[in-house]
Each structure stands twice: as structure tokens, then as C-alpha cells.
């Protein structure tokens, strides 16, 4: 990494950790729909997206490994909740399908924009991955968009469920864009344009769609982004998830499956 000074490396690690942790945790949550989806097709969709997200997180952990962090399995399976950098949005239990669907919509549009921005990153190894992930995440946003549209324009019950889920999820989604201490470094190094730009572009992509489907985005005066996840402060839902996810690894770190 010729172009990196120490500050750049610290900034890149911070960025990689939050992206990879978001993907690992939302991937695990998505996998909890395996066998429980409201339709067989949805069961398969959430399971496929889980596989995508967890696979994507592994390559980001691999970049962290190249920057001096422990190997991907170790990083994924041996940290406690307070060492994770995911946002609260991804760690909440799957709840009812309406919540999982709205979360999936808000999260995946943010990922789509994020990897679109990173496709031009000066950190070339990350840019290559971002260019690859864009095409995969396109299927996730198409899926989310199809179902949110159908349900938001469906029966009275489905409309009100979508609206209630959006109301409950909005502030969590704003927590995706919690800024870290390296925003300026990332910008000046050309690694990433930053969370504020990402948030603006995300709103430009999701708000018109939600409005088109007749959903009301909560009034801006009520916006209260749920922060803390990027700094290691989490809900009580994360540690039980990690304990379950790492159960086999904890019993036998050399187990192969």
C-alpha cells in the first residue's frame, strides 16, 4: 500500500470494519429467515442475500488482514459485541416480515450508493471489490424495491404495516451514516467521500421511491439518528447473535464444515 501513511491506514481500517461488520451481521439476520419466509421464494431470497452479504464481508475482512489485522475467521468469530462497528439497524432481530423488508430496503440502497462511491476510491483494492459488489447488490435493491412497492400499494393492512415499519426503522437507518473521526482523512486521501455525502445520495434515491409508493417519510423534525454502533456501543441484541454465530467456532476453532 504505497500511498498509505499511518493515518490513512487507520482511516481505511475504520471504514472497512464498519462495512464488513454491517454485512456480516445483516447477513446473519437475513439467514434467520431460512425456513421461515412468508413464501418459499422469500425464504430463498433472504437466504441468498445472506450468502451474498457474508461472502462480501469475508473479502473486506481479507483487506483488513492485508492491513495487519487478524485473519478473517478470527476477526469474524472471536470479537465481543463492543469490538464490533456495525450500526444498530443491522443487529435488531428479524421481527415481523414488514420490519425485515423495510430494513432490507433502507440498508441495501445505502450499500448500493456506498459501493458506487467506492468504485472510484484511490484505495484500488477496495475499488475493485466495490465494482464487483455493485452488480450483486443490484439484485438486493431490485428485490427490496419490488416487494416494498407491492405491499405499500396493496391492501389496507399491508399499507399500514409498511408505514408503521418505516416509522420504526427510519431513525435506525439514519444511524448507518454515523460519522467517525476519520471522515476528513478518508476524503483528502481520496478513499471515500464520507458518510454525509453518502447519506444525501441515499436520501435522493430512497425518498422519491417511498413517496411514489404512497409512504410518508417521517417528518424531519422527528429525525433522531440512532448512533453508537460505529464506536462499539450496541443494543442488547448483538451479543446473543454473536454467541450463537460463534458457537461451533468456540467449541472447536479448527472445525471444518
Amino acid at each position, binding site marked *: 500500500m504505497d500511498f498509505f501513511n499511518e493515518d490513512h491506514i487507520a482511516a481505511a481500517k475504520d471504514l472497512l470494519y464498519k462495512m464488513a461488520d454491517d454485512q456480516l451481521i445483516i447477513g446473519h439476520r437475513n439467514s434467520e429467515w431460512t425456513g421461515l419466509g412468508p413464501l418459499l421464494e422469500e425464504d430463498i431470497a433472504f437466504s441468498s442475500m445472506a450468502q451474498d452479504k457474508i461472502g462480501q464481508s*469475508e473479502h473486506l475482512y481479507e483487506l483488513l488482514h492485508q492491513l495487519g489485522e487478524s485473519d478473517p475467521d478470527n476477526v469474524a468469530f472471536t470479537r465481543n459485541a463492543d469490538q464490533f462497528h456495525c450500526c444498530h439497524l443491522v443487529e435488531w432481530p428479524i421481527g415481523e416480515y414488514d420490519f425485515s423488508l423495510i430494513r432490507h430496503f433502507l440498508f441495501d440502497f445505502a450499500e448500493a450508493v456506498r459501493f458506487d462511491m467506492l468504485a472510484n476510491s484511490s484505495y484500488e483494492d477496495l475499488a475493485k*471489490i466495490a465494482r464487483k459488489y455493485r452488480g450483486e447488490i443490484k*439484485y438486493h435493491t431490485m*428485490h427490496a424495491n419490488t416487494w416494498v412497492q407491492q405491499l405499500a400499494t396493496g391492501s389496507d393492512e399491508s399499507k399500514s404495516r409498511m408505514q408503521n415499519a418505516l416509522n420504526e426503522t427510519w431513525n435506525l437507518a439514519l444511524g448507518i451514516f454515523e460519522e467517525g473521526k476519520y471522515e476528513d482523512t478518508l476524503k483528502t486521501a481520496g478513499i471515500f467521500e464520507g458518510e454525509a455525502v453518502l447519506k444525501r445520495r441515499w436520501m435522493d434515491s430512497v425518498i422519491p421511491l417511498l413517496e411514489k409508493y404512497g409512504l410518508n417519510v417521517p417528518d424531519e423534525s422527528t429525525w433522531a439518528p440512532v448512533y453508537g454502533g460505529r464506536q462499539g456501543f450496541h443494543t442488547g441484541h448483538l451479543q446473543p447473535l454473536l454467541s450463537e454465530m460463534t458457537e461451533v467456532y468456540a467449541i472447536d476453532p479448527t472445525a471444518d464444515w
Partner: protein
Amino acid sequence: MKLSEENIREALYDVKDPEIPTISLVDLGIVTGISVSDTNDVNVQLTPTFAGCPALRIMEDLVADRIKIIDGVNNVTVSTNFDVQWNTNMISEVGLKALKKHGLAPPPRHDGYIELDVLSDTACPYCGSRNTTLETPFGPTLCRSMHYCKNCKQAFEGFKPVT
């Protein structure tokens, strides 16, 4: 005898996708680099079809195993990276036919932009009819979508286009 990159590529036509045994890794378009040193040390680079493809490590092993049995080959290394990012336009014409032979509708060529209507307009691999519907863009593996042919009244799978 000094081996050429072409010797290696020829051999790799024998290595098939573990999940779609009719298509070679070369025709799938995932062999992105081959180099042979003066001492016949061989390095092959692969690129993943999907980041979460569980067959990545298996394909590395299959490639290494095939090259090791070429006469005169010295050390073999196989690595997977994203230096070239795979997309379905990298599947050869032979590869598209091989997918169809396996009962998968081949992905349409794309110009870097994919919407759902592209997938909805998929010809049935059994009867060729375009009177089909897209059931879901997710299937039994990450690279497949699920469709239904209203003409021959059969469900079928497609290899979905990826940018």
C-alpha cells in the same frame, strides 16, 4: 520443454464448474491470468463469479490438480482475486451453449445496466418460447434465477445476468 500459457489454458478446458458440470472454467470466463516461468512454475489467477460463491476454494483445488498432471510442470499456485471483475458478458459463446445444455437459460448480453424486465424476457431453455415469467431473481445457487414457461408449462432456471 518450456510450457506455454496456451498449454495451460487448453488443460483448463477440462476443469468444469462444480455446480454446472457442462461448462469449463475457461468458458465461464473466470480464468483471468495464466503465467508460466522459465522453470515451468505455473500461476493461475481466478476471479469469483459471486463474492459469496461457496465453490471458490474447490475451483482453486480443481485447477491446481489439473495443472499438476501436465508433463513438465513444476510448482503450481492458484489464487483468486478481484483484479478483473467478472460479469456474465465474460462467458464465451461455447459457455452459453453449455449452460443451456445443463437446462439453464443463458444470461442475455448486457450493456452494464440490468433491470428486472431484462430477466423477465428470458427464453425457455427447453422449448425456446419467450412466453415465460420470472418467478424470482434468487434461486438454488447465487448465480441462478427461477422462471416458468407458460408454453411448455415447466419451471426452469436461468443463469442470471450480472454486471
